[in-house]
């Protein structure tokens, strides 16, 4: 990274998330650091259980107790947000950081109309009259592509189809004007046929509102369409992070190479789908040294003993002793 | 999730496993459950050993003396050290009557739960496994009965028995009638739970496999499906036990339960009721306290059991 840069929008420094249990603490996020600039789209990929959602929850301050950020710092616009009081955190959520959760069906309160939920959120963060808030809500619904918004605004969530609901959720995430939106698996619960549309809506509206996106997903296809940069998580750490092109076409970390080559390309004949042997280690059984070494085709002695840090590799950064 | 089957031949192995299991760990670490279990055990022991533990046999009329009647507890002036908790109008030692009453209350409680469980589980199994009109009929009856409070059903069965039998005969079989009434009034929950469990299990592959092997449906139901229902059934039974004891006490208090000659705790309360207004509070308070103590202990155990067996709350 070179030249003068403005203060990044978000800085995550050596964050560790812990869950105390009967038999000792579990650490789903072991040591993650990255930064995000205003308006950027950062994709975070990894298998289930790699710690991506935990990371997202930690940033927005919604870790379920007894989970907590045990180490590290999270800075938004240069100020720490990981050590704020509950009241201060409540003010930030929605207003500075928005969340697009995974399941639109269960994320919308079934007993309140879409309009009511929008207006509630808007008025919680801005001094506005009911009418003004409602007008704003109508604007948002139009932006996310809900047809006949003046009729739909007074309908209940169960009257919307899955894709429409997710658009409403996006509107809700953006209605208070956040600078950062965390989208946690926003398309996983939707039909494949509408996933692309929703990603499109997400990207477009966030850009129009000047919001950066952290897109958490296990679906590489979604990332490839949307992200500016990509971070790959494995066993609670970032093993590679860099511009989209670099990570996808010239993956530096062996795990990333494995991931990329396991994606079948339409139109090319394959004998068998290639896969990475083995499975990601469980939280209670993380190997010493580099967590990937048992499965890595390029592992050597040092990998078993020491944990690698992110270092420049090819055009991105990778945590691997190869570099 | 392991199924908790209890075959006699594996009892030893199971006890060992039980001690180390999650359930027992939860038990050991929930102080209220331990205290409740201890209290319940004490009550149980007292009830079982009543004839030997009680200082006096309150039903041996020749041992009673009216001179001793209506004495207060030993710590109040006028009390007699022979009668720890005082005496009632007939000179019976309250402590002894409570022990015997406890015995009767617990017998009726356990027996009616057993009856309800047998009835409910069998009907639930039948309904779930047979399906069709059998299931429909049983479930409709269950629904209809469920819309009435159990105590009303118990009262009804009781009232019918009373009207049908001459008074002397009724007194003799009062306990049986009570067990029947309470049992009949509470089978529904077992049936419903078992039925829904059976319906789910029936579709599972291991059942279909055994079916293909040609085993008789009853065998399948009893040997394979039934063990999977023990968890929920146990929880229902514990809650039901407390309710059964309460219902019996209520019926006896109302005068349609155990007669004064063989009183349960509820009957004792009713008999003591008359003396409430004349200041002889011990005749009514101590039996009441014993009753509350038993029910509380059983309820605490039931609560703990429910929380411990509920996978969602772990």
């Amino acid at each position, binding site marked *: 990274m070179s030249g003068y840069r403005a203060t990044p929008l978000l800085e995550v420094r050596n964050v560790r998330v812990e869950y105390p249990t009967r038999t000792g603490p579990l650490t789903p996020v072991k040591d993650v650091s990255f930064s995000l600039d205003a308006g950027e789209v950062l994709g975070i990929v990894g298998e289930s259980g790699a710690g991506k959602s935990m990371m997202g929850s930690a940033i927005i301050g919604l870790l379920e107790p007894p989970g907590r950020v045990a180490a590290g710092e999270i800075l938004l616009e240069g100020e720490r947000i990981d050590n704020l009081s509950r009241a201060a955190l409540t003010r930030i959520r929605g207003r500075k950081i928005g969340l697009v959760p995974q399941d639109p069906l269960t994320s919308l309160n079934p007993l309140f109309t879409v309009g009511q939920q929008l207006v509630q*959120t808007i008025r919680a963060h801005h001094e506005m009259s009911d009418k003004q808030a409602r007008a704003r809500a109508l604007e948002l619904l139009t932006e996310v592509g809900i047809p006949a918004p003046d009729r739909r605004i007074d309908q209940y969530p169960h009257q919307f*189809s899955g894709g429409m609901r997710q658009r409403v959720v996006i509107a809700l995430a953006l209605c208070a004007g956040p600078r950062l939106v965390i989208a946690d698996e926003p398309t996983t619960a939707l039909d494949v046929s509408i996933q692309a549309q929703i990603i499109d809506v997400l990207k477009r509206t966030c850009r129009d509102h000047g919001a950066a996106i952290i897109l958490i997903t296990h679906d590489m296809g979604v990332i490839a369409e949307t992200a500016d940069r990509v971070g790959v998580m494995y066993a609670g750490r970032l093993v590679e992070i860099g511009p989209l092109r670099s990570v996808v076409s010239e993956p530096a970390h062996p795990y990333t190479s494995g991931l990329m080559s396991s994606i079948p390309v339409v139109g090319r004949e394959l004998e068998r789908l290639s896969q990475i042997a083995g499975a990601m280690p469980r939280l209670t059984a993380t190997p010493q040294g580099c967590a990937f070494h048992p499965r890595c085709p390029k592992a050597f002695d040092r990998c078993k003993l020491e944990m690698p840090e992110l270092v420049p590799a090819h055009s991105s950064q990778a945590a691997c002793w190869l570099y | 999730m392991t199924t908790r089957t209890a075959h006699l031949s594996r009892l030893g192995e199971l006890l060992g496993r039980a001690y180390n299991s999650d359930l027992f760990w939860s038990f050991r670490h929930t102080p209220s459950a331990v205290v409740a279990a201890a209290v319940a055990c004490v009550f149980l022991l007292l009830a079982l050993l009543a004839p030997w533990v009680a200082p006096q046999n309150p039903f041996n009329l020749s041992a009673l003396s009216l001179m001793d009647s209506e004495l207060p507890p030993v710590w109040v002036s006028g009390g007699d050290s022979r009668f720890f908790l005082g005496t009632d109008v007939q000179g019976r030692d309250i402590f002894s009557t409570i022990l015997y009453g406890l015995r009767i209350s617990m017998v009726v409680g356990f027996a009616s739960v057993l009856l309800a469980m047998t009835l409910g589980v069998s009907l639930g199994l039948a309904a779930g496994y047979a399906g069709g009109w059998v299931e429909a009929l049983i479930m409709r009856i269950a629904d209809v009965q469920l*819309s*009435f409070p159990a105590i009303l059903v118990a009262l009804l069965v009781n009232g019918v028995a*009373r009207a049908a039998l001459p008074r002397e005969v009724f007194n003799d079989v009062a306990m049986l009638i009570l067990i029947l009434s309470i049992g009949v009034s509470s089978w529904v929950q077992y049936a419903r739970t078992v039925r829904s469990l059976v319906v789910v299990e029936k579709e599972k592959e291991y059942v279909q496999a055994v079916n293909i092997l040609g085993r008789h449906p009853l065998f399948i139901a009893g040997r394979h499906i039934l063990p999977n229902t023990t968890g929920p059934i146990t929880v229902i039974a514990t809650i039901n036990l407390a309710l059964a004891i309460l219902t019996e006490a209520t019926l006896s208090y109302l005068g349609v339960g155990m007669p004064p000659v063989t009183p349960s705790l509820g009957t004792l309360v009713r008999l003591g009721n008359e003396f*409430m207004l004349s*200041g002889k509070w011990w005749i009514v308070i101590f039996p009441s306290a014993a009753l509350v103590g038993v029910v509380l202990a059983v309820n605490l155990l039931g609560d703990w059991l429910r929380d411990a067996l509920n996978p969602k709350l772990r």
Partner: protein
Amino acid sequence: MIPFIFRRLLQGLIVMLVVALIAFGLFHFVGDPVNNMVGQEVGGEIREQLRESLGLNDPMIVQFARFVARTATGEFGVSFRNGVPVSTLLLERMPATLELVFCASAFALSLGIPMGIYSAINRRGLLTGVIQIVSLTGVSLPSFVVGIVLIIVFSVDLGWLPSSGRGEVVKLGAWSTGLLTASGLKSLILPSITLGLFQLTLVMRLVRAEMLEVLRTDYIKFARARGLSEGIINFHLALKNTLIPVVTVIGLQIGSLIAFAIVTETVFQWPGMGLLFIQAVDFADIPVMSSYLVLISLMFVIINLVVDLLYYAIDPRLQIGGPQAGGGK
């Protein structure tokens, strides 16, 4: 919606018929009706005449139909115990019971709901611990014990409140109410608490459990993620989601209260339907017993139906259909 109502009405009708059958069975098979009326010494011929005039020799179906017709028009027969028409007795005693049930419910709800909400929001805390203990003992206390203890403390020892009866009542047409006199109100206090205590603990536990469940849902989490304050989340959103299932359970509980009034009325010698019923059971007064049964069943069926309709009215998911046309995906 209409077919739903129709189905529920039909169900209710079937229940009533079954109950009528049981009541009819009581009348005719439990003890001999003629015996009940005239005693053992009366000779054979007179009995035969009595049987004929009572229509006891007609086929069962006819007798049953007659029974149903008579019951439906409110003619419940005559009490064995005191020869008074049962319908008169019931009507006389109904206001007492209904008033008691009303006050008990009011007591249970006005305390139970706030306590449940408080203990759900403040999961750990001294007051919540106390509330938990109260709720546990409440479930374990038989209501007659509660009544007795209350009487001992407030009537015998302190002498503040009466231990039995309704006090002075004011007649408003067919209804007699104790709410308009001081002694009437004082008489209502202890019985209402006794009857309502069990329901109080039930409501409290239910509200707490429901609310805890609601507070764990995704939509509440999303609401937090949007920065809505805890106050709004607890008292505006979660409350609404909690109360809807709770309201229906409470409605069904009212039927239960009417039945449990039997015990409370016995403890306080409250001149209501419950006491009447117990006296009937003790005396084997079949007409009163079976009429009470039919009347109670009718009340239950009506309450169940109203509660179902209420549920329909409050939950928007049941009113309007699913996803509507008028939009792409």
